């Protein structure tokens, strides 16, 4: 016999092969549930916890924390969009639903910002790769809302203002902490895990200063 083959025997007992006793047993289970729920319903004593139904418009289910919902564009501290139009998200998007047109950012420290940022929520496959690819925590899918129904297809395309309307300030540092974060981590005093293992990173020495509060 080949490796990994598990033989599952057919139901062999006579009562299962005859069908009728097995069917009667199954009907017994459903009948018991029916009678219980029917009489509790009639007398109005059916507990909410016994009902699997969620009566949607009135009560909504709490989505889990990592639920991927509608996109939102995060904001800087001054309310500007965090996105630097690096084109990571439209590149990685498997559904090609993100459109970015870049323009020069006025303040000079940041090179680019999106002039147009549109997401076609009707094409989006809600894979979350855009949020994964974003280097500056500018796009997120943690709004907890699913795509809204629309009467026209064009209403399913969300523009920059609408995406930003759900945005909040991000706790991440814009631009990251710089290219030398490994050295910074390594330079911090830390206890080696065991005797002879050398600490990660290059040996401690002078590292270039990084302005963490760079805007």
């Amino acid at each position, binding site marked *: 016999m080949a490796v990994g083959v598990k033989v599952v025997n057919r139901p062999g007992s006579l009562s299962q092969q005859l069908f*009728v006793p097995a*069917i009667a047993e*199954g*009907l017994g*289970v*459903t*009948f018991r*549930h*029916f009678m219980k*729920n*029917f009489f509790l*319903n009639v007398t109005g004593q059916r507990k909410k916890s*016994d*009902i*699997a*139904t969620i*009566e949607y418009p009135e009560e909504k289910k709490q989505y889990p924390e990592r639920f991927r919902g509608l996109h939102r564009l995060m904001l800087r501290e001054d309310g500007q969009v965090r996105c630097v139009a690096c084109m990571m998200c439209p590149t990685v998007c498997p559904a090609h639903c993100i459109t970015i047109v870049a323009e020069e950012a006025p303040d000079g420290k940041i090179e680019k910002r999106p002039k147009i940022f549109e997401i076609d929520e009707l094409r989006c496959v809600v894979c979350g790769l855009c949020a994964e690819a974003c280097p500056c925590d500018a796009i997120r899918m943690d709004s907890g809302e699913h795509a809204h129904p629309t009467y026209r297809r064009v209403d399913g395309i969300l523009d920059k203002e609408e995406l930003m309307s759900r945005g909040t300030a991000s706790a991440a540092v814009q631009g990251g902490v710089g290219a030398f974060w490994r050295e910074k981590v390594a330079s911090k005093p830390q206890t080696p895990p065991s005797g002879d293992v050398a600490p990660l990173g290059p040996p401690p020495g002078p590292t270039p200063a990084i302005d963490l509060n760079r805007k």
Partner: protein
Amino acid sequence: MSEFFSYGHPGFAAVEAIAKILFMVLGFLMPLASILTWMERRESAMMQDRLGPNRANIGPIKAWGITHFLADALKFIFKEDYVPGKAHKFLFMWAPIMAMAPALIVAAIIPFGAPLCWGEMRETVGYGTACAQPVGLQIAQLNVGLLFYFAISSLSVYGATLAGWASHNKWAMMGGLRASSQMMSYEVTMGLAVLGAFLVFGTLEPGAIVSQQESITSWGIIYQPLGFILFLTAAIAETKRTPFDIPEGEPEIIGYFVEYSGMRFGLFFLGEFLEIVTSSAIMISLFFGGWHWGTHIDGFLAAHTPNIWIFPKSLIFSVLTIVLWSIKIVVFCMFQLMIRWSLPRFRSDQLMRLGWQRLLPISIANVVVTALLILLVQSWNH
């Protein structure tokens, strides 16, 4: 004019027949089948710890959402009546009607209550006594009775097959083919299952069969328990419902009505529930005593039915028997709904194996054993 309404006149027979047809179709079959569309969803919800459709209401009247069937009908009427471009228009239009009509037609032979004693309405009831002018509560008293049932109910296979063929859709075609093969296979078992009851009662006329089942101990189920199970299985297969819903096969081919929308789909939908009602009625007539509830209950009602105001006691007694008969039908329909929501479906080859290799030999054996027993009893008595 008074002569026209006198008992035995052709005009009287015509008025009587029309009144019974109107009652049966508009007063019983259609309302019950419509409500069953709601009841199926609500009952399945109760079985699965859900709520089910409970929202539809007429103003403040909610009544557990029972008006959902009206909302459904309204929706069906206002939906687009779509006909696929390459469909065979004529057959596409007629297939839903051909699927539904047989279920209405077979109701003609079902006895649904005690006969009215015309002419002596205030003196006697149609139970135990021979009326001088009985008006049987059965639309057509046919001597071929059950053969008529098989002849007409097997026509409903045309509805499914033609719907599948006329849609010009591969899935619909598959569904139609599956429907025809399944219904042909199970009709054989169905006929043979009834043959046992036919041998016991010695007649094919449902009215005569019912009148032989006055006491509970003479119900068909006592003589033909196996025949009943076979007939029930075949009848569920004929209605094309789970566990025999291969022609619909929702997860794979959606079925012969995949191209239908609006009220045409509604007709298929309603036809399925009409078939449930009529097959329940046939089963009750054959195996559960028709409108009889045993000599005690029927006898008590017959002895104590009074004349109330303008309603003579014969009429009141007949109405009471119709109500009691309806209770049986509703319970039977609920049982069929419960079977649908308890069992998983068969695969197509399992279905054929069950039909041809298991049910058919068992039903033949049932007929042979029944015939031998009857022969034995008859020779014992002589």
